[in-house]
């Protein structure tokens, strides 16, 4: 998998409970960040799609998840300075992670179908044109490969890793990569049935953590080879992915394969020299125990930040949303407070940031762990 490759991140786009867009998200680096608001219908950090997000698209009934991807992509494209000509003439790939963006869980068809009615199947047929990666490529009129990866909670990180591979193998010139997620009620009920949901905002790594809080959002990065004239915001340094092969929904408690993925992303570098780690930190019992214990044992002196207290767990978008937050932290030389954390769990013995942390961070790791035992790690750095 790509390591120490000469790839640059030249644009960022983000939508999450932490803010609509990069500018609004920058408030994380201030002391008085407002708490995200849970939806009145379900304890989820939901986002309302704004009417202007539909501007310029032909699809009359776009999925919300696709509007998230498009809005974040437009922001990333603008920041990278990619012109319409660039988008037309370059081979621009799209590589996204999503769950809802490749499923047909939309209630418009499935509710009547499952309650004894015989609905018009056309909403099901639209599934063919709604795959988020393909939809985004068509909406932007791009010419390049498209791929959607659905690896549960590591999807966003994996999409970025696959995109890096495309560039290294010269399959395209630029990639819009990342993830987008919408939280449908049945997804919430699924997590709730597994007793993984918190009724309130999450408390990652905290002694009294009570589970995850689902969130909607998207994170998109413009990734390209460093030789392009565009100004790099950050360097893509490596990607590692390994599987626990342990349990369908719980991580290997030893964190062994997470560690192998970390080292694969680092290549010859040492974790002790990494500026900070943006942890997956879902605030579930099993994730935080496995990930936190591994971090305490293998990176005891490395600063750890947990950001799901602002964004919620955006599932397949999480790795991408957190990659964007990692790049912003590298650029600012600041880490946000790990919202929700107050008291360390003695079984973990890890304390993420409790105040704005400042430092001359040169590199960072962003970790993702997912259902099915996937472990995916991105290694990012400041521009040289």
């Amino acid at each position, binding site marked *: 998998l790509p390591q120490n490759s000469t790839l640059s991140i030249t644009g960022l786009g983000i939508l999450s409970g932490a803010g609509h867009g990069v500018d609004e998200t920058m408030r994380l680096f201030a002391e008085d960040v407002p708490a995200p608001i849970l939806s009145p219908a379900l304890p989820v950090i939901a986002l309302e799609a704004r009417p202007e997000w539909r501007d310029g698209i032909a699809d009359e009934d776009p999925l919300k998840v696709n509007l998230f991807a498009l809005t974040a992509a437009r922001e990333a494209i603008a920041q990278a300075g990619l012109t319409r000509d660039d988008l037309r003439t370059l081979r621009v790939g799209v590589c996204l992670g999503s769950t809802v963006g490749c499923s047909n869980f939309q209630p418009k068809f499935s509710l009547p179908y499952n309650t004894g009615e015989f609905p018009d199947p056309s909403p099901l047929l639209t599934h063919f044109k709604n795959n988020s990666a393909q939809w985004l490529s068509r909406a932007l009129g791009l010419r*390049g490969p498209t791929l959607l990866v659905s690896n549960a909670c590591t999807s966003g990180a994996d999409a970025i890793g696959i995109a890096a591979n495309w560039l290294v193998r010269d399959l395209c010139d630029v990639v819009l990569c990342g993830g987008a997620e919408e939280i449908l009620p049945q997804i919430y009920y699924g997590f709730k049935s597994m*007793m993984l949901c918190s009724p309130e905002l999450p408390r990652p790594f905290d002694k009294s953590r009570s589970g995850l809080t689902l969130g909607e959002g998207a994170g998109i990065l413009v990734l390209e080879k460093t030789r392009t004239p565009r100004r790099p915001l950050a360097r893509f340094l490596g990607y590692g992915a390994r599987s626990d092969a342990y349990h369908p929904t719980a991580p290997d408690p030893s964190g062994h394969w997470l560690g192998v993925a970390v080292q694969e992303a680092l290549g010859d570098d040492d974790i002790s020299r990494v500026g900070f780690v943006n942890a997956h930190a879902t605030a579930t019992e099993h994730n935080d125990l496995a990930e936190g214990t591994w971090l305490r044992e293998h990176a005891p002196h490395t600063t750890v930040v947990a950001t799901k207290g602002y964004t919620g767990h955006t599932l397949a978008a999480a790795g991408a949303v957190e990659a964007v937050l990692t790049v912003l932290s590298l650029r600012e030389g600041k880490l946000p407070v790990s919202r929700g954390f107050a008291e360390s769990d003695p079984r973990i013995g890890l304390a993420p940031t409790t105040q704005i942390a400042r430092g001359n961070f040169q590199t960072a790791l962003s970790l993702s762990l997912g259902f099915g035992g996937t472990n995916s790690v991105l290694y990012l750095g400041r521009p040289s």
Partner: protein
Amino acid sequence: MIGLRGWGQVSATGQGIATLVEAKPVITPRAVKTAFGEREILTYTCAEVTLPASVPEPVARRMSRLSKMALAAVDEAIRDAFPSGLEDTSRLGLAVGTAFGAFDLANAFQKRIYVEGAIGASPSLFAASVQNSIASQISAAYKIHGPCTTVMTMEHTALNTLRAAYDWIEAGAVDHAVVVIGDEVSDYMAYTLAHQPASRALNPTRDEFTMIAGEGAVALVLSRANPRVKIAELAIHAEKPPAVERFFTAACGMKNQHGRYTAWLGGHAATSHAALYGGLITGAAFETLLAALAVRDDGQPTAVVQLSAKVSDRDEAQFLVLSPP
């Protein structure tokens, strides 16, 4: 050089490569309730598969039909590629491709919520309906510790999945990768097809709607070591066809499909074997397997071509070229 070292399959012809070569698919009628009364459609139907004895019965019970087909295909491919058994599974990757995933099981999870409310949500159905549950079950069964990924990009699923696995080997992240690609004929799909123009004898080279849905899974083992067929080219975004003389396509009898393939190939014959395995959006996986068997037997380089579904005015093309090692 990276190539295909082993293969396996489950389809309407049966379980195992030998049944595909024998070429006697089972096509069965299926009654579907619609707003216009009960309608009968034809589908290529896979019989219940035999899973390896190493899969515990309680685990098998929780698996989707698609998972079972995929696992059976993977088991055959692994035994074919590694007759002495798997050794270092930390250097083995797994890439799963599916256009729709385990649709019936995912719908069973949803239906209980719609009918019973939140209390109907089943944790076991939810876990098994997560899209990467197939990868999870296969990786656990064979202790595959390399990267495990699930690709879902509709008609571009098959070659994208192969490309992801190919790149892992190219990058040195793994020595071998198991790729399994497939789909099932779900109740949703049958309901949708029952509202389409009547199916007739499948003819993938006719530009009328003759699609009869198929299901199944193809497993391929990619490796640098001892490949039987070489992957000469693997383009997931192609502007023009490769320079070979034989083309297998994923045309499956959808309207205007065959004409689009022949046009893109500049008049070359666009062969499709969908009549063998049925209309599958991931049909390029079956065409890849059939191309591998053909190249192994006659040594003639063969391309597998996949065009995009007709949802826009663009023809997004992909191709894979297989040749002798």
